[in-house]
């Protein structure tokens, strides 16, 4: 009896498998196209999906950590904060700085004094008027190291903030810093109501009060965060929806399903594997845009054999960047052709290390490693990174470099990478990393990662232990002035020098991936991965 039962199960299973194989055949993505860069075709033929009410649900990949912009270092928390809070200046769709709560701003030529003219007649959600004193309270909070705020570093140079009159603020720095306006446009500089700061203190992270189009309603840490319409918003006619609910959904499949069933109106990120199959069905539109997130492979320049620039260049030549984009990023990325992404201020395009195994082998031979060598590749233990590391392993095997992949969870990484005191004893060889300079300025894209000794771990993120005096000097020059021409020239030099020294293997620039129902408009991801929702609208 038992055996017959088993046979039936096996038969049923085999039938199922045939069915599944049939399915997989029809779903094949063609791998023949020469162009590795993909773009989602806009699906215009779809009729508008139905939507009742004016409440929007957004499904995101992680939990929110804090609602205090001054004490936040994850882009996701900023996405939610930006519905409620605003800064003096902000970024537009292309990471250009635009005025928000300030009407206009000026910088002194020596890049030490910044003056903001404020917009009049704006009130915080709790009724406190927005004025120079409020701005001063916020900047002072950020600039005071005793507050131990995560974003203090962006404002550590502020010497004093002065309320010149009710609607004029002057910020004075202790030394010149040309990229300061971008720091003000960073979401870290968003304004909280001074009254709320006083009442809640550190607890303001649970009770954000700002000037934005939405007011904080509730935050259930295990489930969702809800914001409701601010009836007195200073931009007339906005916002155009009644509420936004953010739902953290870490599982990719679940997030996609929420969009398909209509439980969520907007999701991000959309898993790149599913972007194409999702787009154009059930009233779903998938949008991809170039971000400012760069992927790189850093090489410890203090350690043999990576101390030889020829070895580093060889590794650059040995990696097929087009294939990287296609295989690892599913086509939703672009090969990286500088240290920073094209949407970052002062980007200057370099000539790519074209995939060339012969040249790579030649360089290795010159450097004395004709037979290759053994290498260790470190990276975090998430799926995407794992895939990238495996790809690099395959590529470097072609020139005889045997790579051992070591995935690490964040605790181990903190131990082995970020808290190493003596650079010469650092064990790190190759490191697979990503970086998003959320100030949108070249400074934050280069200095923390390759800015010489000052950027070595544990102070910052220079995993290549790269230290080139010429580069350091050029970075300094660029910061010493607010003159755009001069800064541009300095950063051009920085990028050219780093490109030639190749402390990294330059891999790709990610795309931002968002999926939405087609009745939703005015919502998009900024290149730094933060969400812009102020113009959100439901079309029916």
């Amino acid at each position: 009896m038992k055996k017959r039962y088993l046979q039936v199960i096996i038969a049923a299973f085999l039938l199922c498998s045939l069915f599944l194989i049939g399915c997989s055949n029809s779903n094949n993505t063609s791998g023949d196209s020469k162009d590795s860069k993909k773009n989602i075709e806009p699906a215009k033929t779809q009729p508008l999906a139905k939507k009742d009410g004016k409440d929007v649900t957004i499904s995101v990949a992680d939990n929110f950590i804090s609602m205090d912009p001054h004490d936040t270092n994850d882009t996701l928390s900023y996405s939610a904060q930006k519905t409620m809070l605003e800064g003096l200046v902000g970024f537009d769709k292309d990471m250009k700085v635009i005025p928000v709560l300030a009407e206009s701003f000026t910088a002194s030529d020596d890049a030490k004094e910044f003056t903001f003219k404020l917009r009049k007649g704006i009130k915080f959600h709790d009724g406190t008027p927005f004025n120079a004193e409020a701005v001063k309270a916020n900047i002072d909070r950020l600039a005071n190291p005793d507050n131990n705020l995560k974003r203090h570093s962006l404002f550590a140079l502020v010497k004093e903030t002065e309320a010149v009159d009710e609607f004029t603020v002057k910020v004075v720095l202790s030394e010149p810093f040309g990229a300061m306006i971008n720091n003000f446009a960073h979401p870290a500089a968003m304004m909280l109501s001074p009254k709320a700061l006083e009442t809640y203190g550190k607890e303001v992270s649970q009770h954000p009060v700002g000037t934005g189009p939405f007011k904080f309603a509730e935050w259930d840490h295990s489930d969702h965060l809800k914001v409701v319409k601010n009836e007195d918003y200073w931009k007339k006619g906005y916002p155009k929806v009644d509420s936004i609910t953010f739902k953290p959904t870490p599982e990719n499949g679940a997030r996609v399903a929420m969009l398909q069933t209509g439980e969520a109106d907007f999701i991000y990120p959309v898993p790149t594997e599913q972007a194409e199959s999702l787009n154009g069905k059930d009233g779903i539109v998938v949008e991809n845009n170039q971000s400012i997130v760069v992927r790189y492979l850093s090489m410890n320049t203090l350690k043999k054999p990576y101390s030889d620039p020829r070895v580093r260049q060889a590794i650059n030549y040995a990696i097929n960047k087009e294939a990287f984009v296609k295989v690892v990023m599913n086509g939703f990325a672009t090969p990286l052709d500088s240290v920073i992404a094209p949407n970052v201020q002062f980007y200057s395009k370099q000539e790519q290390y074209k995939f060339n195994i012969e040249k790579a082998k030649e360089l290795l031979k010159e450097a004395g490693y004709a037979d290759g060598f053994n290498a260790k590749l470190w990276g975090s233990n998430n799926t995407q990174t794992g895939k990238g590391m495996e790809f690099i392993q395959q590529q470097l095997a072609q020139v005889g470099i045997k790579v051992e992949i070591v995935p690490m969870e964040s605790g181990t990484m903190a131990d082995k990478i970020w808290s190493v005191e003596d650079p010469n004893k650092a064990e790190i060889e190759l490191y697979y990393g990503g970086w998003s300079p959320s100030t949108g300025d070249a400074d934050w894209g280069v200095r923390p990662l390759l800015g010489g000794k000052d950027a070595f771990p544990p102070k910052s993120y220079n995993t290549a232990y790269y230290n080139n005096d010429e580069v350091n000097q050029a970075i300094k020059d660029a910061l010493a002035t607010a003159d755009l021409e001069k800064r541009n020239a300095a950063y051009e030099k920085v990028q050219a020098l780093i490109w030639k020294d190749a402390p990294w293997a330059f891999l790709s620039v990610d795309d931002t991936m968002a999926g939405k129902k087609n009745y939703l408009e005015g919502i998009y991801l900024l290149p730094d991965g933060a969400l812009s929702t102020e113009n959100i609208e439901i079309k029916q």
Partner: protein
Amino acid sequence: MAELKVNEAIQQPVSQPVNIKKNTPITEFWRKFKRQKLALGAGVFVVLLFILGIIGPFIAPYGAAEFDYDHILEGPSAQHWAGTDAYGRDIFSRIIIGTRISLFISILSVLLGAVGGTVLGLISGYYGKWIDNLIMRFCDILFAFPGILLAIGIIAILGPGLGNVVIAISIFSVPMFARIVRSSTLAVKSTVYVEATRSIGAKPRRIIWKHIFPGTVSAIIVNFTMRLGTAILTAASLSFLGLGAQPPSPEWGAMLSGGRDYLNTAPHVTFFPGLAIFLTVLAFNLFGDGLRDALDPKIKD
């Protein structure tokens, strides 16, 4: 002498028909086992797997790490019988090559577990008293953890890697064997022939290895086969979680894990390694079932 001869004469006709059938334990076992068609089929499958484990890398049409970025995530076709994965590697070849890893891990780990468990079980069952208590309570503690959880705990201490997977699986196989061997030992210990051996002054070591251990072998073999299936499954689970085999190793669990993201768009990437695990574990379990039926003296025809 005369008496003895008579005895032989009496025995002769009785043993005659038995001799014709050559009723040794092995033929007896085979007679019982071959009647179970499903177990026999499973047995053949297991033998094939072992052959594949040995010659796999030589007959696989593609190398395990041979990538082809122009043919990624393609479904089954004439060139790639089980399709290709995210790097354009041939899944069929990888499964064949991975057979060796899965079998090697499971056999080694269960063997270690069986040796440890058997020794503990024999000691525990033979000597009894406080040592029995000590060993059995220790086994109870290990039993209190679900197998996979215990394995994850051990990996967390030792760090990921195939070697540590072997250690983890063998540790949680120990109490299973210890308990089974102990119960067989208790049964065999009270038989008359063991009593007799002891009465003529045999040392405990001789009694255990010469007289008790052979009596527990059938139980060990059955359990061994059954555990192999579980071990393959556990090793695959650990690799799936990223705690076992590391990429680009073609271990089945790791392959399964690598295809997870493509479940909707390219199900064959997970399907075929899954099928391999499923069939292998099923075969070992059915085979073990058949062995038990054939070896257990209590089950009569």
